[in-house]
């Protein structure tokens, strides 16, 4: 199955990148957010390094009708700035600062032998399961659009 092989390859590159860049080290992530303490600029290099190949990939994708394996390419991005985007990102940011972990590095840390990651990971999955319920509540309290 080529689809599974390339998904595994892409995940491997992502996991390797998260690990060697230090993004599985919560102190580096919190250090980047800690502008009033010992500020660590590493995360900006990671983000810049990641955006460069992705920007090229999007330009290539724009000239193609479908992905290499024949599956459709993602549609144009929505430009809707709704409450869910803002509120969700703020809640995510608070948790990101508290523990220094975002979803990718949680998966990349699973095999690194730190028991706390399983507690964080389980709570994260519960939060993800709660999201559809919170989302439908938010949708009910504001007019659509």
């Amino acid at each position, binding site marked *: 199955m080529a689809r599974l092989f390339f998904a595994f390859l892409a995940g491997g590159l992502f996991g390797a990148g998260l690990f060697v860049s230090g993004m599985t080290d919560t102190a580096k992530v919190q250090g980047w957010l800690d502008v009033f303490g010992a500020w660590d600029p590493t995360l900006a290099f990671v983000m810049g*390094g990641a955006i460069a190949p992705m920007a090229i990939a999007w330009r290539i994708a724009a000239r193609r009708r479908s992905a290499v394996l024949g599956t459709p390419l993602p549609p144009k991005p929505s430009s809707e700035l709704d409450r869910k985007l803002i509120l969700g990102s703020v809640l995510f940011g608070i948790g990101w600062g508290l523990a220094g972990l975002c979803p990718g590095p949680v998966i990349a840390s699973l095999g690194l032998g730190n028991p*706390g990651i399983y507690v964080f990971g389980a709570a994260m999955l519960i939060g993800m399961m709660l999201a*559809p319920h919170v989302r439908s509540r938010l949708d009910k309290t504001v007019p659509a659009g």
Partner: protein
Amino acid sequence: MNMQMDWIWGLVGGLLIGSGGAVFLLVNGRIMGASGLIGALVDGTAGRTKSERAAFLAGVALLPILLRPFFSGVESHLTEDMTVLIVAGLLVGLGTRLANGCTSGHGVCGMSRLSIRGFVATACYILAGGASVLLFRHILGVI
């Protein structure tokens, strides 16, 4: 490791992350967003993409294990405070799924295609993250 080496490894790691995203986009036709790839597996919206998501996540988990023997200096520094772990985990899970993206989806994949949602989400989680460290580390002293 000194700081300049950290920046170089940051850049190298970033290029690997972006290359993974490029492969996933151009070969599989998919956006590399960690929260979405995980989240759809637990909220039942993954449908026929379950195995593709699982294969991706297996790669993410496996490579750090393989690389670890060559990077003895890399540590986790994760807190052992159960309350912080649980509260932070819930916020990250709920928040990223409400916002439909996290650092990889909105940050790397969104901003690189100049998506306005990507820029707004990234600004929100960075500002909130900075405020969170300021409050919980410097004001309340709990992290």
